[in-house]
């Protein structure tokens, strides 16, 4: 019996972590019982006489509630555990394990190492899997991921640097793809048929310029808009392009799309089994893998050009103006920066890289239709940019590998059938896992993989700017 007047009165000791975790877990379990109880515990089925009966599944609900209890218990224990010191974040602690010299090597050596890996990747795959198996790995993983890396780097200029939220980026991708498809299948055969083998190399710059032009066209009306309003209008723009491609059948052949798009040549030497083909010219045995490898190197070069140009632009006045625009548009205008032109260049250059990627996409597929340019694509590209850390090239590349490579990899997980039974198809759960992973990453790193910003100029030493100061832009 304790009371305030009791001389032996002592404050109750704070509950031990285990007791607290158990209490929280108990509450979670009760809630789980309330939520899942009606849903899982009872099921109506038909019995032998076709009567509707209620089937009870108390075992299942017990398992679920127990799982929730255990999960919450462990989570609580993990979060309230004694921390040795209020130390730096996990990443910093991990890198703190490395000596300074090693850390510098990792930081400066990572990009070149990644480059080398990028260039030897097809050879490595070829020697590991040989012939036909290599196609899938180079095409689905190599080329597919690199297309998204390039698209994300292009969108990064608009969203990451200039801070303009663009939900219709896929429109420029479509413009580039259709530009190549239409010019290569209709214009060139009608005018200069002799240029057929060069079609890709002629159309690539044309597609980029056309996409940039459409970027400016989109830019003009939306310049006065910000934030949510800008996002909605760009979203509408993306849909308009897609709907025009569907409905203007005379122009784009509607849903059926455009097929038999000429594949790129090795600078004039086509990849076919003929005597003048690539394999014969270089004295190799004909194999479709050569074209895939060639396409791989083309997209590697295109992506690297995108990275190089956007990195270079960032250090030029126009790039600084983009970032300044993201930070504070009114201050920009007070300093004599023409914000209209600055936004338009961001839209145009971002769109141009989207156009290049689209043109490459059409050349790789050989067939395009409006199905490939849905809002989902825009959303995935934007998700890559946000997940990677807006403005960071390395972060964006990592995010593209994780997202596109991850979803492709989920197609490969047949061994999961051994665990979940023969009916289990991991591909069906792709988007669920994908969404969970995104939520987890955003909880772990709210500003993306690489959230710090490297200054473009320095007086004494270049120090990264922490994400706390960098603004996301307001549209």
């Amino acid at each position, binding site marked *: 019996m304790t009371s305030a007047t009791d001389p032996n009165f002592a404050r109750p000791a704070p509950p031990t972590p285990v007791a607290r975790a158990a209490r929280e877990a108990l509450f979670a379990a009760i809630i789980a019982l309330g939520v899942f109880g009606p849903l899982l515990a009872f099921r109506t089925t038909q019995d032998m006489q076709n009567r509707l009966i209620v089937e009870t599944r108390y075992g299942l609900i017990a398992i679920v509630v127990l799982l929730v209890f255990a999960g919450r218990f462990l989570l609580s224990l993990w979060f309230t555990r004694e921390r040795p010191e209020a130390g730096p974040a996990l990443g910093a602690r991990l890198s703190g394990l490395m000596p300074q010299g090693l850390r510098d090597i990792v930081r400066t050596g990572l990009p070149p190492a990644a480059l080398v890996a990028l260039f030897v990747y097809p050879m490595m795959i070829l020697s590991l899997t040989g012939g036909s198996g290599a196609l899938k790995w180079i095409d689905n993983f190599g080329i597919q991921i690199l297309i998204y890396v390039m698209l994300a780097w292009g969108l990064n200029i608009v969203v990451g640097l200039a801070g303009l939220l663009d939900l219709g980026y896929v429109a420029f991708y479509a413009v580039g793809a259709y530009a190549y498809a239409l010019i290569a299948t209709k214009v060139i055969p009608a005018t200069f048929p002799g240029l057929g083998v060069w079609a890709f190399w002629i159309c690539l710059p044309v597609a980029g310029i056309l996409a940039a032009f459409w970027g400016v066209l989109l830019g003009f009306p939306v310049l006065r808009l910000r934030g949510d309003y800008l996002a909605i209008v760009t979203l509408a723009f993306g849909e308009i392009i897609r709907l025009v491609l569907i409905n203007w059948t005379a122009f784009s052949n509607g849903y059926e799309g455009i097929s038999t798009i000429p594949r790129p040549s090795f600078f004039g030497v086509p990849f076919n089994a003929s005597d003048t083909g690539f394999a014969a010219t270089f004295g190799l045995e004909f194999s479709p893998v050569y074209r895939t490898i060639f396409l791989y190197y083309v997209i590697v070069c295109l992506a690297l050009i995108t990275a190089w140009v956007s990195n270079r632009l960032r250090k030029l006045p126009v790039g600084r103006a983009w970032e300044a625009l993201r930070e504070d548009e009114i201050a920009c205008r007070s300093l004599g920066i023409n914000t209209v032109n600055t936004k338009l260049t961001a839209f145009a250059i971002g769109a141009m890289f989207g156009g290049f990627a689209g043109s490459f996409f059409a050349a790789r597929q050989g067939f395009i239709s409006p199905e490939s340019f849905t809002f989902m694509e825009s959303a995935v590209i934007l998700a890559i940019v946000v997940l990677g850390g807006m403005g960071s090239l390395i972060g964006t590349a990592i995010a593209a590998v994780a997202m596109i490579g991850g979803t492709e990899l989920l197609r490969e997980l047949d061994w999961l059938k051994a665990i979940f039974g023969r009916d289990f198809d991991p591909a069906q759960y792709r988007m669920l896992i994908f969404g969970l992973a995104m939520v987890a990453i955003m909880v772990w790193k709210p500003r993306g993989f690489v959230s710090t910003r490297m200054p473009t100029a*320095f007086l004494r030493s270049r120090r990264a700017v922490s994400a706390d100061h960098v603004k996301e832009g307001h549209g």
Partner: protein
Amino acid sequence: MSEAILTVEHLTMRFGGLLAVNDLSFEARRGDITAVIGPNGAGKTTVFNCITGFYKPTQGRITMRHADGRTHLLERLADFRIAQEAKVARTFQNIRLFSGMTVLENLLVAQHNPLMSASGWSIGGILGLPAYGRAERRAIEKAAYWLDKCGLTDRADDPAGDLPYGPQRALEIARAMCTEPELLCLDEPAAGLNPRESLVLNDLLRFIRKEHGTSLLLIEHDMSVVMEISDHVVVLDYGIKISDGTPPEVREDPKVIAAYLGVDDSEVEKVEAEVGL
């Protein structure tokens, strides 16, 4: 007496039914520090926004006269052209720095226009032509000069958002000066500064006028700054100019005293008649 650098004539700014500035005319002379003062809500910042193009005035004319005799009609120029061509720079009452960029980068952004042409509108810059490299080095030197003047050299590579309040104000002034203005408009530069920082600010403003020949127009509440450094004071109340003269003249003006301190009840009618209400 030197010629006027900025002439404001019959400036009127209406927001719907609210008359924020009513038929205001005044002059700021070249080489002077002109202060615009007045109680809260008198329309000072509105006047500033009209001069720097952030508002389009309902009526009136604002003429900017450069040292070489060229004139610009500011009410007709877009806001960014006022900074770029008419050479009028401004700071903001609520500081507007590029907080995620370093102090140095803030000053480089301010030199956007000369750097842009040096980079051949980015084409030469992408190709890495040496002309841009030289221009950028000069821009960094100029930034370093202003950092030195504001005592921010040690913080040059820190994010601007990391600076304390006083240095942020100084950086905003340095950033405006990097655009090489003929007229610098400061919206409450001393707001939130402690007395010591105010003194440093006074010295900086005097230095800017003396060494760079930049004329200053400032809105200020801090009378120690206004009376100390300004050559000419314009007093606004309810969008109307109630006094115009040297600091001692303005200080003695009964209308100004009435506007700031109020008057005895017995004198209200007399003063109202004087002021013209």
